[in-house]
């Protein structure tokens, strides 16, 4: 299959909230299987950029291509049928998990496969068990979210996103709400996915993880990309003063 069909391309995306410019002429591309870390000071527009990629957020200029589907500037980035195709290919995991509290771990994972993809419940459950096993939660299938730790919740959320069989995952600061030892179990799952060829776009503050696991690091500051390259160069010998300033702050 042509690798373009699984790539993500962002061209000249602009986004404003009223008078404030959140994203300014943002362009980059992510190839299949790449792991890209987006870092930068808070308020730089990282989360907004991520949410534009699967159509949760509209934008005011530019175009985003996910596989062979386009998101365009305007109030409705794409018709719902297109959004659904994009969201099936690009899952999303949130900082605050957003598991469905009235459903068990297993039910959380099969919800979309059964009701969006139309999978038979038995097939969906078989796949869901495999996914929960993979993220190390084989023993917690019947648990409700409130009975799980933060790290366990986030791993259920990852399994839930994977259940749609996406080629990539958008991860929005998914370890920020977790204690250090719980972060490790979530990052281990990400490593595993990366090795398996999953495309990962992470908004993150985990510099160590970015350095070790990312193929590229993108630095976003004031809505603009100020740096884009391999972690050794961006984190080691940054070209842009904003990057150096940011790195000094987070590494102190």
């Amino acid at each position, binding site marked *: 299959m042509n690798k373009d069909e699984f790539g993500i391309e962002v061209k000249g995306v602009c986004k404003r909230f009223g008078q404030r410019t959140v994203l300014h002429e943002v362009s980059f591309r992510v190839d299949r299987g790449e792991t890209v870390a987006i870092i930068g000071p808070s308020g730089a527009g990282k989360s907004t950029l991520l949410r534009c990629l*699967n159509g*949760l957020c509209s934008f005011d200029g530019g175009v985003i291509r996910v596989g062979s589907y386009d998101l365009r500037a305007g109030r409705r980035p794409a018709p*719902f049928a297109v*959004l*659904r195709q994009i*969201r*099936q290919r690009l*899952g*999303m995991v*949130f900082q*605050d998990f*957003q*598991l*469905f*509290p*009235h*459903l*068990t771990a297993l039910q959380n994972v099969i*919800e*979309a496969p059964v*009701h*969006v993809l139309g999978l038979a419940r038995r097939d969906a459950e078989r796949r869901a068990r495999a996914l929960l096993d993979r993220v190390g939660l084989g023993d917690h299938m019947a648990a*409700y*979210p*409130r009975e799980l730790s933060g790290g366990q919740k986030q791993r259920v959320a990852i399994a*839930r*996103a994977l259940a*749609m069989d996406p080629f990539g995952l958008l991860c929005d600061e998914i370890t920020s709400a977790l204690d250090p030892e719980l972060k490790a179990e979530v990052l281990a799952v990400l490593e595993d996915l990366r090795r398996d060829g999953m495309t990962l776009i992470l908004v993150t503050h985990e510099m160590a993880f970015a350095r070790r696991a990312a193929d590229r690091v993108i630095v976003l500051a004031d809505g603009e990309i100020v740096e884009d390259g391999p972690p050794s160069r961006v984190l080691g010998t940054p070209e842009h003063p904003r990057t150096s300033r940011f790195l000094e702050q987070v590494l102190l």
Partner: protein
Amino acid sequence: MGYDRWGSQHGHLLKATVAVIVAGIFVFCLVSPRGQAEETSSQSSLRWAADAEGGAPYTFQDPNDPQRVIGFEVDLAEALSRKLNRPIEWVQYDYMSLVAGLQRGDFDFAMNGLEVTPDRAKVVRFSRPYYVYTLQLVVRVEESRFANLEELLALGGTVGTLEETAAQRLLEGMGFQPKLYGNQTEPYLDLELGRIDAVLMDLPIAVYFARPNRKLKFLGEPIGQGYYAIAFRPEDEELAAAVDRALAGLLADGQLKAIYEKWGLWNAAQEKLTQADISDVIAESRQKWTFARYFPLLLRGAWVTTYLSVLSMLLAIILGLPIALARLFGSFPLRWAAVAYVEFFRGIPILLLLFFLYYGLPTIADAYGLPFSLRLSPITAAIVGFGLNYAAYEAEIYRAGIRSIPAGQWEAAASLGMGRILTFRRIILPQAIRVILPPMTNDFIALFKDTSIVSIVAVVELTKQYQILAKSSLKYLEIGLATALLYLILSVPLGALSRHLEHRWGKGQ
């Protein structure tokens, strides 16, 4: 005769007001010892209680001067005042509570078309009768199917009358199941509208309300007979005896006859006033209201209350959701319509709505010559009225419940490719129900008790049944407790059910 008005049916408001006033007077007396002193100095004036609300031709507000009352009883009171040489001061008092008010000492006597009945005679000292009432059958002017009550009974027709009156007892004795009303205008209105076949009420009422109505006619001669008398406290024997003498005097000197002629109420039956001895009446078979006799009636009332509340709430719950959704997610006109609905139905009194549905709708259909009838049955009018009204409240509860679910849940579902409707059905509503259920159960319990006002559209539910029974048996406390118990038996499990569901659906949170 009786004229029960919204005042007593809408009892909680009235009772609250009375309670506040009584409490106020109590405090006033405590802090101001002079209050009582002033009271005794004006003792020479007699306090006479009657209900002026819709009380024509007995005692009613003067259309020319609403501050005053007029009526044949007002004329009689003036004549008595002259004979006794004591001023008589009228006080407004709810008809249903006249006997209770007399016992409490709120006034000195009640003269308000009170029929002499054995039950009442047990607790009050009646004067000699001042009027012999008869009962007049009234039908629609085109009526030709029957010529008297017996023929109507054979036809299986329906007769309307006032509750707790001689007419009711007479009809029930004949084997009718009369339709009971709380005031004297509505039976004639229902007769006109074709909801019932005939009305049997005291002649003075028929003379005043039915005779001027060209769509109605009197059928046959008046039937039945009974006495109106003035009620005193048994311990006020001296006063009662003085009034008896004064009444005898008014009868002898023709003043009484003049009053009745003025109001078109004189008839041959009044000749009996000279020889009337009310002990005959009292000697009538005494109806004993034992538990075994009144409780089945209360149960029937409780069933009507339950049925009415459940169906009304069901309608409100079904109607409330689309209204809430229109307000939350609808286009501008839909949103606006939902807001208008909620504000309108929350803003108008349910009483007004019920009146409109029951009495107003048929006249609209008639006035515009609509090909279909809008004559709702009493129970349908009540269910529709409460359903529409409560739908406004339920819509707001739904809205609050739906809005309490964080936006992140919508986003999480959207990012899995779920559409808005699917998300709402599978993710949002199941969580919102936990928030929605407790206030909705509260509303249901409130509705349960609110339904007590539907007797204005002639539905006899639990509270109405209590009023009827308590009044005929005078066992206010005993039957009141039994009624309260029934309400509790019905509403307490509802609260338990709500907690159970909250727990069941709330798991995971």
